């Protein structure tokens, strides 16, 4: 649909008729009723330098039904060409997505274009709506952790962390979490942060056509995934952080694996920075593209690398420390470029900081070997003491002996805990942690039952998606891809 079928040349005169109903681009909107289109307002001719969104495309304030909606189903090509030919201006509507190789998943963008210039951009979301928030109301408190892990699947540990911190807070056990549990949580979050940043950098580069960057990033990510695989059995969607602690301790060779991971990352990560930061094509594509200044970030709720790229060092790990982040020595990475390249640089620098935190984790884990990894509360902790046998992980023989032969009460408690779980006192809390993409928050409401009353996630990707028009309108079409890659919205988190 990028063909310009308008007979008049593009640069003939400034268009003052953009946004009038006559150029309603309803080529793929069969439900647009021509008779119902609003009259042209008389003062619109004065605003020839200001783009007025087409009221038949986008709903205005107070518009009840949102007028025309564009469907992702397309139309017959001949019809599209014919309707485009009838238009009196050179505005064309380009539908991008929901399956486009450069839209970071199933995001959809509807663009109004004048030639290569983006006049307006509207993100279309919901193509990955999974109903996770609703489904969590029908799962126990512990089952929520693996479920919420699948929201933002690239940075899944941050989802679990924010949810479990909320449950901890509601249970009133935030200060009783054992030290080793907190260290393991931090370790999981930082390994996941590196993996997520590598995907953000790698796919961002892939969308620009730089496949070698992607390969190097994926290669390093494999090392991270191999490590997560060793302690929780899964490469992605770990469900590792649980209310009261973590699901399991490190395996016997876990510390060695972590040391090896740190060694690999320390030696390999700088290479990515080396061959991208001075790369003229990457710089040309990214510098001064997708700019967001501090005021815009504040207005639109942008956080994470996007906010820190404006020079404001807002990092929840420093500002509101959780899981003992205040005991780690690391720097908040900031940049003042405000553009896509600044976010790229921040992600690269943050990975180095995460490696620094991982090294401190090693020290703390060495010091706390043998200490509990979950709260010492029979109500909340795991139902059985687990062990790894010849046929995989399962309840330990001693525990089975206790349940089956010695204590009827222990058997009842085990049964109740496995089938029903535990209750959480009524109330509501909000917690926030620094996810790789930005600030992720969890609003949790309990009515005192075995399941949450309401779980709501404030995902950074959702708020970053709304910065897209601000970053892209007035720019080039090719810069939309760069801007989208730089905010790294993961649609699983955006749509949930």
């Amino acid at each position, binding site marked *: 649909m990028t063909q310009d079928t308008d007979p008049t040349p593009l640069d003939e005169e400034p268009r003052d008729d953009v946004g009038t109903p006559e150029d309603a681009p309803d080529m793929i909107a069969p439900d647009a009723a021509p008779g119902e289109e609003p009259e042209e307002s008389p003062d619109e001719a004065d605003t020839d330098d200001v783009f007025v969104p087409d009221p038949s495309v986008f709903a205005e304030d107070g518009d009840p039904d949102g007028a025309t909606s564009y469907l992702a189903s397309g139309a017959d090509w001949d019809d599209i060409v014919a309707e485009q030919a009838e238009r009196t201006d050179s505005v064309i509507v380009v539908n991008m997505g929901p399956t486009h190789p450069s839209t970071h998943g199933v995001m959809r963008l509807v663009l109004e274009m004048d030639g290569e210039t983006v006049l307006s951009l509207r993100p279309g979301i919901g193509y990955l709506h999974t109903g996770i928030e609703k*489904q969590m109301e029908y799962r126990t408190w512990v089952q929520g952790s693996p479920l919420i892990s699948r929201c933002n699947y690239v940075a899944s540990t941050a989802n679990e962390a924010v949810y479990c911190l909320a449950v901890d807070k509601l249970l009133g056990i935030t200060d009783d979490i054992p030290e080793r549990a907190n260290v393991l949580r931090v370790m999981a979050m930082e390994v996941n942060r590196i993996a997520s940043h590598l995907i953000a950098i790698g796919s961002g580069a892939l969308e620009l056509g730089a496949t070698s960057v992607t390969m190097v990033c*994926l290669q390093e990510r494999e090392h991270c995934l191999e490590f997560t695989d060793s302690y929780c059995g899964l490469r992605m969607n770990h469900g590792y952080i649980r209310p009261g602690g973590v699901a399991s301790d490190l395996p016997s060779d876990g510390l060695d694996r972590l040391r090896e991971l740190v060694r690999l990352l320390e030696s390999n990560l700088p290479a990515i920075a080396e061959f991208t930061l001075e790369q003229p094509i990457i710089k040309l594509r990214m510098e001064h593209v997708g700019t967001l200044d501090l005021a815009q970030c504040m207005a639109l709720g942008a956080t994470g690398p996007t906010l820190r790229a404006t020079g404001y060092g807002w990092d929840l790990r420093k500002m509101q420390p959780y899981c003992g982040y205040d005991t780690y020595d690391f720097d908040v990475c900031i940049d003042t470029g405000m553009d896509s390249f600044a976010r790229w640089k921040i992600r690269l620098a943050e990975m180095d900081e995460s490696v620094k935190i991982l090294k401190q984790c090693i020290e703390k884990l060495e010091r706390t070997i043998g200490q509990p990894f979950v709260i010492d509360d029979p109500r909340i902790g795991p139902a059985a003491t687990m062990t790894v046998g010849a046929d995989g992980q399962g309840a330990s023989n001693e525990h089975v002996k206790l349940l089956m032969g010695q204590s009827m009460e222990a058997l009842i408690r085990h049964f109740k805990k496995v089938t029903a779980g535990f209750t959480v006192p009524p109330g509501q809390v909000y917690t926030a942690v620094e996810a790789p993409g930005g600030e992720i928050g969890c609003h949790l409401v309990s009515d005192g039952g075995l399941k949450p009353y309401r779980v709501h996630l404030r995902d950074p990707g959702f708020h970053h998606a709304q910065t897209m028009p601000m970053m892209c309108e007035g720019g080039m079409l090719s810069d939309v891809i760069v801007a989208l890659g730089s905010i790294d919205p993961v649609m699983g988190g955006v749509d949930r």
Partner: protein
Amino acid sequence: MGIEERVPSGVMLTSLEAVIGWMRKTSFWPLTMGLACCSIEMISYGGAPRYDAARWGQEVFRASPRQADLMIVSGRLSQKMAPVVRRLYDQMPEPKWVISLGACASSGGVFNNYAIVQGVDHIVPVDIYVPGCPPRPDQLIDAMFKLKENEVRRQPLGAHAVAARETAEQAAIDAPALHELKGLMR
């Protein structure tokens, strides 16, 4: 007796189906269609040096359905996305195959709720199901090889294709409705 006895030595006879199937199975062009978590593993399969699908000539993912012959439905399929996926499938030229990657694509997975299609076989015919949440890239490699051996290499042509279509249609007509199924696994 047959033509085999009259051809000179050193000439081997085979069927056109076998030759074309043999060539087809080494030239997959998968469609770039990532939906959710499994798509990240699909990217690892295609792009990560460890898995390196280029070893079997499968790294060329195509963004246009017109140039693709394999659809990897990678991840949960929402009700909103379902018509889009079906449209992409319709736009792919024959012959085409579908891999359902992951538990959500195969059966809805853990998401038994209002938003998720309970298995992509509700909207497109699936050739091979890959379990896992998400499946490892190794599993996708395995699925690819099984698909090549069992489906692609044996793709019928001409009269055989017509007969296969008719058999499949008759089987679908004869298949009992859900309420007619008896037994434990209803």
